[in-house]
């Protein structure tokens, strides 16, 4: 019972925090010259790890697709399987989980440290709104970069799957491409980007919320960071189901 009421109180607190954040942004606007820095930190610094992870998810999609369809004699369908699963589901969610693990934890810990060392209070006393100053640039940065990272993840995943299918499993390259083209459409990239923006919104607000509500001392920062990554990745994965239902439901 206690855990449920705590969770409900947390959701309420988060709601009020988001309201305060929106109000702060409307009144004060994001600070000049910060957003590009944040976009760089979030985007460019996460790129190498994203390339590795999405590449190796692509390889395994191809392997398992091959295993699944081979007994049915439909191994040519690997291209279709990889495209549907990769483009629509795995690329957005993997990019989001990775950004939650890298940029989200960084947000929670940076803001948490600023909170416990009175730097957030210092901003307030210097008449600079901490929500607008600290959160708004991170929000814009993540919402610009996560869609871009998702599109990159899609291409890397498909290229890796193609490489494994053609050079390891001996499938015909033109068939892979043909089935891939038939199963996905340009609109899927837009949907991927929309998913990514919504995930970015969630990761940023959840991580910054936990940072601002950080407990005392280094232990508090550790806890805030941990909660930020767990909560935001779980939320993204659950939401991914509903978003897919909403975006692709009719087409499936």
């Amino acid at each position, binding site marked *: 019972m206690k855990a449920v009421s705590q969770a409900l109180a947390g959701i309420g607190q988060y709601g009020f925090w988001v309201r305060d954040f929106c109000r702060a942004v409307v*009144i004060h606007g994001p600070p000049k010259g910060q957003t590009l820095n944040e976009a760089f930190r979030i985007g460019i610094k996460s790129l190498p790890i994203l390339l590795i992870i999405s590449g190796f998810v692509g390889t395994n999609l191809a392997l398992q697709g091959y295993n699944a369809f081979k007994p049915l004699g439909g191994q040519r369908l690997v291209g279709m399987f990889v495209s549907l699963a990769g483009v629509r589901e795995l690329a957005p969610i993997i990019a989001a989980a990775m950004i939650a693990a890298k940029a989200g934890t960084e947000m929670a810990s940076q803001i948490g*440290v*600023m909170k416990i*060392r*009175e*730097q957030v*209070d*210092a901003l*307030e*006393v*210097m*008449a*600079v*709104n901490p929500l607008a100053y600290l959160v708004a640039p991170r929000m814009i940065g993540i919402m610009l970069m996560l869609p871009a990272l998702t599109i990159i993840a899609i291409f890397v995943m498909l290229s890796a799957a193609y490489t494994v299918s053609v050079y390891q499993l001996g499938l015909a390259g033109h068939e892979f491409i043909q089935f891939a083209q038939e199963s996905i459409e340009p609109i899927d990239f837009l949907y991927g980007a929309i998913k990514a923006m919504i995930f970015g919104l969630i990761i940023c607000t959840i991580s910054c919320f936990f940072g601002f509500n950080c407990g005392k001392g280094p232990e508090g920062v550790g806890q805030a960071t941990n909660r930020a990554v767990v909560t935001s990745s779980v939320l993204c994965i659950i939401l991914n189901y509903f978003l897919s239902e909403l975006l692709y439901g009719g087409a499936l």
Partner: protein
Amino acid sequence: MIELRNVSKSFGENTILRDISLAIPAGQTTAIIGPSGTGKSVTLKHIVGLLRPDSGQVLCFGTDMASAPEADLYKVRRRFGMLFQDGALFDSMSVGANISFPLVHHAPEMTEAQRREKVEEKLALVGLPGIYDRPTSSLSGGQRKRVGLARAIVTEPEVVLFDEPNSGLDPITSDAIDALISEMKEALGITFIVISHDIVGTINVADHIAMLYGGNLIAFKPTKEFVQLDHPIIRKFLGRNLILPEGPNDVARLPGLE
């Protein structure tokens, strides 16, 4: 100019301030003293509007910080400077960027060269010339406080608040900070509010002393009169005998305080 009227504040069941009324004299240094956990920092946070009281008023330049909307709070805060306990410097910025931060946000008409000149001037005033480009991570505890002080005075505020300027410092640096406060008061005519549990330093810098104990204001007098007071808690505090009962509920049991 700054006045607390019947301010009370509790956190949950824990009452921190009980019906505090205090008018801070302008252009002078007022010290708020008392053992740890008696509400000194909480009082300071009420003055700058970081906390709002459960009841009572906090008047700063005619604005009631207890009920004013955010925009009014920000207007009043621009007339304040505050030095936090460990300086509260932004780790990601250099010393110069830290000190010029309030100028960047509130004096956009200044050119970068003008800002730099002003920051160098304040750095010289706190005895740290030539460290404009140093990262804050390279500073010692005392240096962080001085840089924090430079940031607090860079906008030439009318009121400067100090949260424990001497805590965690060695006696020599601590004396140097006290001397700095006295010098700046003479030179700039600023109203200073200092909270401290360091009694010797406080007597040296303060014109007035307010003593909080268990959430009550037990005395508020000019320093000369304060040190003569014949009050058991004050005598104990002045004697640096800090073995005092901890919780607010124990206050009533002490002789001389009903």
